């Protein structure tokens, strides 16, 4: 051990000596090797460069700009923003509106993601079975996913119309409601109503993911479990589910990020209303920035939303990296 240390110390001394004088022969070859290495990759850098430059202008700079704006009083009437420190953040955190938007966002994201997971898993496994109308069902499930968010929002706005909508008609037929409920105009029901629409629109993605994952479960594993006397339910819980777990983790992380950032449904169905009853971070940021033209405040809300999502983004990237997706 001591011997080893002495040798290392000796090497350091040698290196220091050469650094003091001219470049030693060892370093010169190392340098040449390094540049030759980089030159070998110059083609790759050139290929990546156009996208890289464009994304710097379109993503990195705008994000940095929004970060800077969040510390200013930028607004429509103040084209040259003035530095105000953390005032926007402070004002946000002490306001009721912020906490309404915050709890709405959490509620919206958690309920939508959990329901998409459960319903997606159930339908994914269902569509893997030998059903009579399987191909029809698969095509049908894809439609809400491919449908533009605006169209889904308009359709569900009509579904929830108190007099003309299908929701009240169905609920009245089965006697769950006994009047014309204005789902989107009441503070207590507007967000839950949009949540149902979001589950309808977003579940198909999870369904397709879980369908693919379920079909990837090795058949001999399931057969072996059946021979050992495991019931259908046991085979799913102890054999198929663990095999599907990596896909489930990725899909949940992705849907969390997408749902938290989703704008179209809330904006078209209620514009965050009535009052602030259904506002979430993306819609409120948008309203502050472009309807009220208070870019500074909007940027502060946007940055808080980004910070929350960064946690999930990092988890997602770690998940991808762990499976070698970045190699």
């Amino acid at each position, binding site marked *: 051990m001591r011997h080893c240390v002495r040798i290392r110390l000796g090497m350091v001394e040698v290196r220091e000596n050469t650094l003091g004088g001219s470049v030693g022969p060892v370093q010169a070859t190392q340098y040449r090797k390094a540049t030759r290495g980089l030159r070998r990759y110059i*083609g790759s850098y050139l290929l990546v460069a156009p996208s890289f430059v464009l994304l710097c202008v379109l993503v990195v700079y705008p994000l940095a700009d929004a970060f800077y704006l969040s510390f200013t009083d930028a607004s429509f009437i103040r084209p040259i923003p003035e530095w105000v420190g953390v005032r926007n953040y402070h004002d946000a955190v002490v306001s009721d509106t912020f906490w309404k938007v915050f709890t709405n966002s959490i509620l919206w994201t958690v309920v939508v993601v959990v329901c998409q997971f459960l319903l997606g898993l159930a339908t994914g496994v269902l569509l893997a079975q030998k059903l009579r109308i399987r191909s029809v069902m698969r095509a049908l499930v894809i439609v809400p996913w491919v449908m533009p968010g*605006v169209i889904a929002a308009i359709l569900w706005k009509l579904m929830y119309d108190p007099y003309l909508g299908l929701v009240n008609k169905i609920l009245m037929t089965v006697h769950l409601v006994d009047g014309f409920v204005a789902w989107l105009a009441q503070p207590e029901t507007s967000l839950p109503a949009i949540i149902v629409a979001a589950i309808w629109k977003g579940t198909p993605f999870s369904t397709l993911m879980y369908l693919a994952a379920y079909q990837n479960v090795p058949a001999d594993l399931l057969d072996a479990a059946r021979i050992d006397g495991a019931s259908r339910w046991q085979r799913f819980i102890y054999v198929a589910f663990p095999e599907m777990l990596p896909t489930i983790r990725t899909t949940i992380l992705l849907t969390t990020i997408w749902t938290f950032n989703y704008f179209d449904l809330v904006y078209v169905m209620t514009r965050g209303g009535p009052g602030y009853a259904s506002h979430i971070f993306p819609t409120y940021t948008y309203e502050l920035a472009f309807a009220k033209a208070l870019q500074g405040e909007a940027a502060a809300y*946007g940055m808080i939303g980004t910070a929350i999502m960064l946690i999930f983004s990092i988890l*997602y990237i770690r998940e991808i990296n762990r499976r070698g997706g970045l190699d």
Partner: protein
Amino acid sequence: MSTWYRRVQRAVPDAATLVVAGFFGLPLLWMLSTSVKTASEVFTAPPTILPKTITIVNYQGVLNRQFLLYLANSTIVSLGTSVICVGLSILAAYGFSRTRFPGRKVLLVAIMISQLLPLAVLLIGIYRVANALNLINTYAGLISAYLAFTLPPSIWLLRGFLTSVPVELEEAAMVDGASRLDAFLRISVPLAMPGIIATWAYALFITWQDFMFALVFMTSDERRTLPLGVLALIGEHTIDWGKLMASSVLLMVPIFVTFGFVQRYLIEGLTRGALKG
């Protein structure tokens, strides 16, 4: 186990199928049905699920010059964005998939993060950039803005497809005297063509349905894209639901036609990302 129990057990998948079909299918069926109803039937409470009389008057009312203008705008912007996006993605994805250059992992992580950012935040910054460059209310401005959020997922998708084309095939072609570019264009590009088409369609879908950016960028009526045009049909006090549903159906037609062609590759590309990383 009684036969009763077994009979119930056998009926479960069928019952579940019915519930799922109802939940996902009924709104869609109703959308189509509303688009062919007469105005008086649309505005009758309680609503009917199937139309009593079928009319195409809503479609006729929607298909006017203005609609065609919006359609042209949407086509220009979506095709422009998706073609540029795929071009740039092919270059970048090739760079990422064929060499392990220093800094590669950092760039990939940056690309991942940028596709996960809230668009409302980016919009504030991008709007200011476009405003400074006088690109508001221009096709070029909106196309550039769309590249901000189509390029990262496209590079990611295409990298996956290109990685699955074995590099040995290119090397074999180069041994036979082909240049690197030749080998790439003649060997890898045709083999990755399904992936390239899927990526193009993905970028097309995203831009075709966006309205948040279009709402902010396209300030004049003659530059509006289709989603904005459809939204504009929602009046302050009255909404003509029949027309609205008819234009919604029309807006979806190009998507479904394209999706029908690329479905297999697109789903394969997206699920492979989740299954294998």
